[in-house]
């Protein structure tokens, strides 16, 4: 064995691609392969567990590695490989140049191979602790997870971590691949000991079932069935399936979803002309037939499916392209019998068993950004084809993925996983993640950078939206304002501490009062004595402070008032949040622009001195940032204008706009 070159050894067993059939009867071969199923799985483990070698082996055995790639691989193996003169399969799957230099895998890579029965998409995810984000990403589309264990090392903390994440993301089929059996002399008791160890841990976290297989990725034991269908000669004591046999027969998630009630989130309204109006989408669950009764959520209207449209095949020119039924996993266009309110974001569902709508949930959150989660801040939440504004409350707890303990947490950092309440600005159509990945899984998007910063899985709704009705009132905001003979508005003063916000706001209010305008001034210091006395000065508390002030200001504008607010309000995102709460044009941002050194020199309350000496933490301008407005409606340069001059300018601007 030792003097054999690795390529000869590996090449000796051409495995499950039937070369003979290809050569003799290509049509028969193609027919066979036309009807393969598709299974997506992930491999979890580190390079040390032989993960890359296993994937290389699967690609190699299914002939996904060509001669020229193999030649390059042999050359690379000798040059930079870690396996001496032997083939280093890790080089084959570690894609990017940066990674090859660092010797680590930094992202999710997708590989493809197929056997006679199935096509496989493998998400290759790294095992390092800091890359939870990548594993969750790779696992989100997988039907099955292969958890790799080095037979010499047994169940490690990372094994637990990977199993927990796979379980969290809802993977129902776990394979415990006990690898490197060749290095423990194919010892049965070693294998059984590891399996027993794993079983006790698995049941602790709610994993009911898994399949354990003793393998050697390097030598090829129990990867594929031997020629006689029996397990490897090296493990006569093992009578289960080979890895490939198992992958070929395990149930596929999309097939399981067919048994559920019908759900199709609408992606696009298809309207080529006035005679055709169809709703296009990917069926998430169940099946649909012509004539089925359906309900449109959230509108609640019912109708029946008139036709299911796809493009007719070229060979069937003149055919309508209509099909009788369609199932979960198919992309179709539905035409309904009635004109109903239905657009992108709506869900067409079974009339008898539609999904719920709600605007408050408990969810598992996985944080994926370098910037921590900011509780209370508004993020975009995308779930199926719905995109809404949402905020996440301070987590109830964070989960330590090594010990699985629940820890108290104020926020979540990169790769953090926790449970938190999510509130959306309007009700969304959803299901629990356990029931539906499509209607229960969402991503969170930062409104400023547009980056995907987190992912979530809904556990349950905290209150049904329909239980909290908006009480309609007879006197409208227009009537309130009309009586006062004015247009309501919020003059939102923002600027550093000591910039002159309160002084100028006071001067403006006095002026408006003299002009018989109905006003109210909400001052930062005053509000903190009452409404917001429970809040401190952390980033999260500051956001909540602003949110409450925004809501109060909104109520006051509904009463017809002109509201003046004087708050540092250092973050753009929160000022924008308040802007979005109000009708267009009613939020007027007034940037009181005073340079830090000028404000600090004034220091009327002595706060800067305290902040500089470290007695005051999180002080804006000193150890907490101030994000100046980019497009404020009004900018007051206090180095060139007195408070009274500023007030005249602001009042003119306000009333000039009316």
């Amino acid at each position, binding site marked *: 064995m030792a003097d054999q070159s690795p390529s000869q050894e590996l090449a000796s067993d051409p495995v499950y691609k039937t070369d003979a059939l290809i050569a003799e009867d290509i049509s028969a071969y193609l027919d066979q392969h036309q009807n*393969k199923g*598709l299974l997506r799985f992930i491999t979890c483990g580190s390079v040390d567990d032989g993960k890359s070698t296993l994937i290389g082996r699967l690609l190699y055995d299914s002939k996904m590695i060509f001669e020229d790639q193999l030649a390059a691989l042999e050359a690379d193996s000798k040059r930079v490989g870690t396996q001496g003169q032997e083939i280093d399969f890790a080089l084959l799957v570690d894609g990017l140049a940066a990674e090859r230099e660092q010797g680590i895998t930094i992202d999710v*890579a997708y*590989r493809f191979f197929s056997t006679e029965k199935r096509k496989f998409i493998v998400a290759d995810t790294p095992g390092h602790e800091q890359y939870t984000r990548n594993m969750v990403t790779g696992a989100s589309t997988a039907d099955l997870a292969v958890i790799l264990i080095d037979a010499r090392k047994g169940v490690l903390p990372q094994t637990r971590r990977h199993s927990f994440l796979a379980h969290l993301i809802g993977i129902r089929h776990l394979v415990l691949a006990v690898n490197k059996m060749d290095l423990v002399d194919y010892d049965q008791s070693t294998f059984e000991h590891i399996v027993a160890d794993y079983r006790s841990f698995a049941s602790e976290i709610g994993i009911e079932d898994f399949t354990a297989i003793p393998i050697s990725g390097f030598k090829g034991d129990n990867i594929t069935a031997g020629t006689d269908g029996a397990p490897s000669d090296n493990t006569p004591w093992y009578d289960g399936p080979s890895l490939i046999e198992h992958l070929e027969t395990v149930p596929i998630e999309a097939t399981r979803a067919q048994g559920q009630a019908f759900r199709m989130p609408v992606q696009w309204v298809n309207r080529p002309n006035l005679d055709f109006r169809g709703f296009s989408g990917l069926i998430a669950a169940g099946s649909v037939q012509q004539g089925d009764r359906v309900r449109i959520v959230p509108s609640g209207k019912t109708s029946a499916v008139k036709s299911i449209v796809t493009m007719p095949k070229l060979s069937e020119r003149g055919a309508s392209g209509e099909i009788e039924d369609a*199932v979960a996993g198919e992309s179709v266009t539905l035409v309904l019998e009635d004109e109903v309110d239905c657009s992108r974001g709506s869900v067409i569902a079974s009339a008898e068993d539609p999904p719920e709508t709600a605007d408050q949930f408990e969810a598992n959150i996985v944080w994926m950004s370098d910037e921590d989660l900011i509780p209370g801040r508004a993020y975009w939440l995308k779930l199926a*084809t719905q995109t809404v504004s949402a905020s996440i409350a301070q987590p109830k707890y964070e989960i330590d993925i090594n010990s699985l303990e629940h820890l108290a947490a104020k926020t979540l950092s990169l790769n953090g996983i926790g449970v938190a309440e999510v509130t959306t600005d309007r009700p969304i159509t959803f299901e629990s993640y356990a029931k539906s990945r499509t209607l229960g*899984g969402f991503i969170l*998007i930062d409104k400023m950078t547009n980056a*995907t910063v987190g992912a979530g899985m809904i556990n349950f709704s905290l209150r049904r939206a329909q239980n909290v009705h908006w009480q309609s009132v007879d006197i409208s905001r227009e009537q309130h304002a009309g009586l006062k003979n004015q247009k309501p508005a919020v003059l939102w003063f923002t600027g550093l501490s000591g910039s002159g916000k309160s002084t100028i706001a006071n001067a403006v209010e006095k002026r408006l009062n003299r002009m018989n305008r109905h006003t109210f001034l909400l001052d930062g210091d005053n509000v903190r004595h009452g409404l917001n006395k429970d809040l401190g000065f952390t980033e999260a508390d500051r956001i909540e402070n602003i949110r409450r002030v925004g809501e109060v200001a909104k109520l006051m504008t509904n009463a017809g008032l002109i509201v003046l607010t004087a708050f540092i309000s250092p973050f753009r995102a929160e000022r924008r949040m308040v802007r979005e709460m109000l009708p267009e044009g009613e939020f007027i941002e007034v940037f009181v622009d005073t340079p830090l050194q000028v404000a600090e020199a004034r220091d009327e309350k002595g706060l800067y001195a305290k902040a500089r000496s470290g007695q005051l933490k999180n002080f804006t301008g000193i150890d907490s940032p101030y994000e100046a407005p980019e497009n404020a409606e009004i900018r007051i340069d206090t180095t060139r204008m007195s408070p009274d001059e500023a007030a005249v300018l602001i009042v003119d601007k306000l009333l000039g706009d009316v």
Partner: protein
Amino acid sequence: MKRLTHLQRLEAESIHIMREVASEAQKPVMLYSIGKDSAVMLHLAKKAFYPSPPPFPLMHVDTTWKFRDMYALREKSAQDAGMELIVWQNPEAAERGINPFDHGPLHTDMWKTEGLKQALNHHGFDAAFGGARRDEEKSRAKERIFSFRTASHGWDPKSQRPELWNLYNARKNKGESIRVFPLSNWTELDIWQYIMAERIEIVPLYLSAKRPTVERDGLLLMVDDERFRLAEGEEPVMRSIRFRTLGCYPLTGAVESEADTLEAVVQEMLLTTTSERQGRAIDKDEGGAGMEKKKQEGYF
């Protein structure tokens, strides 16, 4: 229970991706290279929006050096799909007479890489579909389906957005754009099988026929028109050849083959032992990092 085949699942996924882009991007475009992958992508777009025509134009970033058969199919395909066809030829490359004989790598850089950036900027497209597949090449295996490009069209492998489930984040800031790869999860065999199953029209050059050729640096090149510069004493020879990938004809190597039906082509492909891109000169630069480097510079 209806069992969906892998091709049905792949088709449904690609259609879903295209509809997401049509719904969320401001001004999408489909890049069309006239190759077999483009043909499949275009066919999927027709299916995704039927009975409407695809709600975006088709754009070919032309080098003026494609095979004649490719130009012929380009016009026909756009017309059949009922889509506007935009052809972009880098005016600077045209003016400087950049060609594959005199300018080596500069030819690809000017006509394709620069040409693509120009075309996207000129038309203000914010999302561009491309037919790349993850099985083609190592750095493609890690590419997202929605791949973000900076305002200068650069690709930063470290700042790509995580893609979970089938939720795609198409939000971007002004100036940024997305490349979308709806065929990411297809393999070469899937493409061929789908072409056969759906009877998709492809450029005849994929099938074997007697064609005039010369042999250079180990590549078998086809003499497609009179611009091909023959070396002294070089004489085109009629050989039975076909192409596994199509690009600029003076840069694309043919294989000798008798496979003149799709079945025979697939048969040869399955029995063959060299990978697809080997016929192209582009991956050979910069050691193994050729494609990755080109992508960071803005190549598709």
